[in-house]
């Protein structure tokens, strides 16, 4: 500014905005990861879930499917293939991260706002997702890599 400016606090109410003002907002670390998992989970649930639920719980009840994929023998047999294990692991992990991320925004929209509550929600919901995914990993790997 020119040195002999007459009045410096010229327009406190509406200081013109300049581009490289640091907005002071820190970059977030978790959110991009969670959103990545959320959209990956979204694709998984959209593409893979309906057919799976249909085969296991809906079709056999109404006789819309010749065999019963959920019968213990057939299911246990298929369960031996690593691909099936990987499939269910992806299903469970993807859906948990997708659902919990969406649930958080629904609860926030419903009014659970404020830094404290949102942080708590983050912890609880992500904990569920992580634990669930680890559980799925445990079952998927058990009996294949170790007894």
């Amino acid at each position: 500014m020119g040195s002999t400016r007459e009045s410096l606090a010229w327009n406190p109410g509406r200081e013109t905005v300049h581009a490289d003002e640091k907005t002071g907002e820190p970059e977030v670390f978790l959110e991009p990861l969670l959103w990545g998992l959320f959209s990956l989970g979204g694709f998984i649930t959209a593409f893979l879930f309906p057919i799976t639920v249909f085969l296991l719980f809906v079709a056999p009840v109404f006789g819309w499917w010749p065999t019963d994929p959920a019968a213990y023998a057939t299911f246990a047999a298929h369960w031996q293939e690593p691909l099936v294990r990987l499939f269910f692991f992806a299903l469970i992990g993807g859906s948990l991260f997708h659902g919990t991320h969406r649930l958080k925004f629904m609860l926030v929209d419903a009014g659970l706002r404020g830094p404290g509550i949102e942080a708590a929600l983050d912890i609880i919901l992500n904990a569920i997702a992580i634990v669930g995914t680890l559980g799925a990993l445990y079952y998927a790997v058990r009996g294949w890599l170790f007894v």
Partner: protein
Amino acid sequence: MRELGGVVSALYGLIFLNLLRTLRAGESAYTAFVDTMRTPPVLYVNLVLFALLVWHAVTWFMLIGKAQPIQFTERPLPWKSVFGVNVLLWIGVSAAVVYLVFGGI
């Protein structure tokens, strides 16, 4: 409504987790769990959740059409054609799941 579909998918995630747990636990636990899932009133809940799940899939395909219009083509594709492509893809993937995961018809 659309948001509900996402939460339902998490619910099914837990159901399948339990399925694996009962599978691990042995035939009786597994069959008991599957039977409870298939008999009313749990069955009706199941059907409602299944409908929500399908609706979630449909809305997700619509969103893809709206979210990535210019990604691969020079001019943005109308979202309806992207939606159509996704549904075809969906049917293809479902068929693949039937054969690869559940061993065919």
